[in-house]
């Protein structure tokens, strides 16, 4: 098994190169694919779709630039859907380095859809103290955010004049890259009964499924695939859908590596025996 010995000693940089080529080629060639819509993403979409126009949706930016390729397409797709339905958006977040990324997304979609700041959307910004912030928002938003992220008093913004706590918010959509979403569930969903859906990175999605099964989440958008599904539902292809052929090609290569690795392992074990 000469090839096997060579395979065992292969420089891992060839593997990196292989993955890079396999991911880059479909993007360069502009390959396209459709995606099947999974129930957790469909439920998120339908929950937002069913909200009456004018309902307030809170979007929490709990990620930063390091997971932007996964989280940003979800944010854009959800915002497009919400604005299409004439819902009002309150943006806030628990990751200080993520808020600017979320603000970029919100401003981009608001510009595209001709929405007005203070009338259709408000950006509260960031406050430290995750759990304490969440619990306090349940009493009065102004206790935590007396003004928006630019220092404009909330009472001077038409959209939030009558928004005081979770009773005035119909849905929370958390765009998540860490365990902040669990804080939202245990501190807010359980205590205040706020309906929530989460868009999580793929790494977190398996852990988040248990909250879906228990009914604590109404929907879940998992990773870039989830974002692609949502883009497909709102009929606005973005990087999520564009990345799916590359994603599939990358997965196939990894599966091939796993199979080769296992064959090598069993053959070398037999050889030793």
């Amino acid at each position, binding site marked *: 098994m000469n090839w096997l010995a060579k395979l065992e000693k292969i420089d891992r940089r060839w593997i990196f190169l292989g993955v890079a080529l396999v991911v880059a080629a479909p993007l360069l060639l502009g390959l396209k694919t459709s995606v099947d819509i999974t129930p957790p993403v469909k439920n998120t979409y339908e929950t937002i779709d069913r909200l009456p126009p004018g309902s307030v949706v809170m979007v929490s930016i709990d990620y930063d630039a390091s997971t932007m390729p996964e989280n940003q397409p979800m944010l854009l797709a959800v915002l497009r859907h919400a604005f299409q339905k004439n819902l009002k958006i309150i943006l806030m977040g628990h990751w200080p380095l993520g808020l600017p990324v979320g603000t970029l997304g919100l401003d981009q979609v608001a510009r595209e859809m001709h929405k007005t700041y203070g009338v259709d959307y408000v950006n509260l910004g960031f406050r430290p103290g995750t759990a304490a912030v969440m619990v306090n928002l349940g009493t009065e938003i102004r206790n935590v955010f007396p003004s928006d992220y630019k220092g404009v008093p909330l009472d001077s913004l038409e959209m939030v004049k009558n928004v005081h706590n979770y009773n005035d918010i119909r849905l929370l959509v958390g765009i998540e890259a860490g365990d902040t979403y669990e804080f939202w569930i245990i501190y807010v969903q359980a205590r205040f009964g706020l309906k929530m859906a989460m868009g999580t990175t793929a790494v977190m999605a398996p852990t988040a499924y248990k909250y879906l099964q228990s009914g604590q989440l109404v929907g879940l958008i998992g990773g*870039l695939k989830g974002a692609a599904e949502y883009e497909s539902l709102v009929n606005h292809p973005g990087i999520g859908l564009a990345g799916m052929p590359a994603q599939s090609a990358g997965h196939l290569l990894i599966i091939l590596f796993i199979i080769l690795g296992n064959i090598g392992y069993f053959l070398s074990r037999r050889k030793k025996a």
Partner: protein
Amino acid sequence: MTVVGIWIAAFLTLAIFSFLYKDNPVYKFAEHLYVGVSAGYYVIYVWSTDIRPLLFNPFVQTHAQTGSWGASLSQNAALFIPAVLGVVMLLRAFPKIAWVSRWPISFMVGIGAGLAITADVQGYLFPQVQATLVPLWVRGSLFTTFNNVLLFVGVVGSVGYFYFSREHKGFLGGLSKIGILFIMVAFGASFGYTVMARISLLIGRIHFLFADWLHLIR
């Protein structure tokens, strides 16, 4: 993003990727820059969105309204509590008086524990236990029945695996073996999703390089 910004981002992306070949000074530069910029950005962001508007501005505003610093200090006296606790927290940097920093820490631990204990029971333990209390026979739906049995066996098996007060032999041994199977499946799902996440991040960067930097794709 401006052209200059795109070129800087492209250079830094390639600099970080260069580590895949081998460690090098360009990678180190990009890594240190990232850490430095993140820390600096965090400090400025927290200062401008929290400390200044919530701690300093109330004093200035009250002074502007009343024309008296005395009135400003007395009206905003409550703000001295978080301010002092915050400053005391920084005393950890001075070993001789570092013990004082335990006060704000104990304050935070107290609040954290108080909030977490009830929230964990109310929002995690009860709903999750409740979600496993499912009928093991659902008339007319074999699929739901199968799912519910699978859920029940998985939960009992996994909990059995983590019961360490008795040796894993006999019934407990069998149960824990079933538990391991479920745990392995969970690890497999996590690994699969992790691969997906990492490939997605690579797609994001490559898409940026090809679309925004090189304009090879739209």
